């Protein structure tokens, strides 16, 4: 019995081990809607996950250093609704993400639009973001 409980707890721990922190706060509590940004770089990883997706992007700083970004997106169901597919994330892909800077983490952003190299543009904003015209009507 104790072994079973241990295994369940271990499994729960394993399921949570590599997740980004998620606290479900207001948009404005985590992101600064007075600091919009445009990130132009290489997408190295995409987490197609609930309740938010995460895009990992590498951008180049003016001094040539690589900066790693974690960009929050809407939930996968909303991404799908706006036409984005898992298969769109290919190896070495470059893209432009427009969004807003995280308040407490310089490598954190909230994405509003994702523009692929082939020109396709997708709305990726999560619920509660600013009314900046990015969301399709």
């Amino acid at each position, binding site marked *: 019995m104790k072994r*079973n409980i241990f*295994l*369940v*707890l*271990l*499994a*729960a721990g*394993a*399921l*949570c081990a590599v*997740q980004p922190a*998620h*606290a*479900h*706060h*207001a*948009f*404005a*509590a985590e992101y600064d*809607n*007075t*600091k*919009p*940004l*445009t*990130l*132009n*770089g290489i997408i*190295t*990883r*995409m*987490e*197609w*996950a*609930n*309740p938010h997706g995460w895009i990992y992007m590498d*951008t180049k*700083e003016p001094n040539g250093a690589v*900066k790693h970004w974690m960009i929050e997106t809407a*939930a*996968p*169901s909303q991404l799908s609704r706006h036409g984005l597919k*898992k298969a769109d*994330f*290919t*190896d*070495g*892909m470059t893209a432009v993400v*427009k969004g*807003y800077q995280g308040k407490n983490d310089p490598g954190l952003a909230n994405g509003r639009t994702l523009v692929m190299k082939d020109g396709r543009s997708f709305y990726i904003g999560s*619920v*509660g973001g*600013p*009314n*900046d015209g990015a969301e399709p009507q």
Partner: protein
Amino acid sequence: MACFRRYATFAVVLGAMFLLVGCSKPAPEAPPPPAAPPYNPVASIREVMNSVIDPNVDVVWNSVKTVIDHGKPIEQAPKNDEEWAAVRHSAMTVAEGANLLMMPGRAVAPQGAGSLSPGIELAPDQVRALIDKSPSGWNQFARALQDSLQPALAAIDKKDAQALFESGDKIDEVCESCHQVFWYPEQGASAPAKSAAAR
């Protein structure tokens, strides 16, 4: 004879009076004061959220996902009975945790605690005022949270990873809807900055 009649009449009236008194309802007794509930809320709503709801709903959400690493999709889902049991444990904890949110007498936050994001998210006394203004609304959201876990539990029992993944959307919708009413109601659309910093 007249004397007999008088006695008979008196006896009939007296009997009728006894009958009336005997048949009338006794005065209702005041109901006993309600007994104190047997439960005792220990944690505040914020603590229930942080200790019960949030960590367990994260297990449900994160149990099925796709990680696309350098273009290579890696599907993640519970792989064995232990992992399915772990997700079920968390889904059930959230569903029952919703009952904790509905229990009257629970503080919104620990004594002396303030807003976690002043000016953006409400202070505990403001949240309390909203709950007290609409306790039925609060309870409806808690029930909706409980209900939103049912598809997840059904998917877990069938070991249906895709259905479990799809159930996550509704759970998130309920969470966000409640938060927008009781936690950060002022956080509607806001004006963005005029220019974007390019990187």
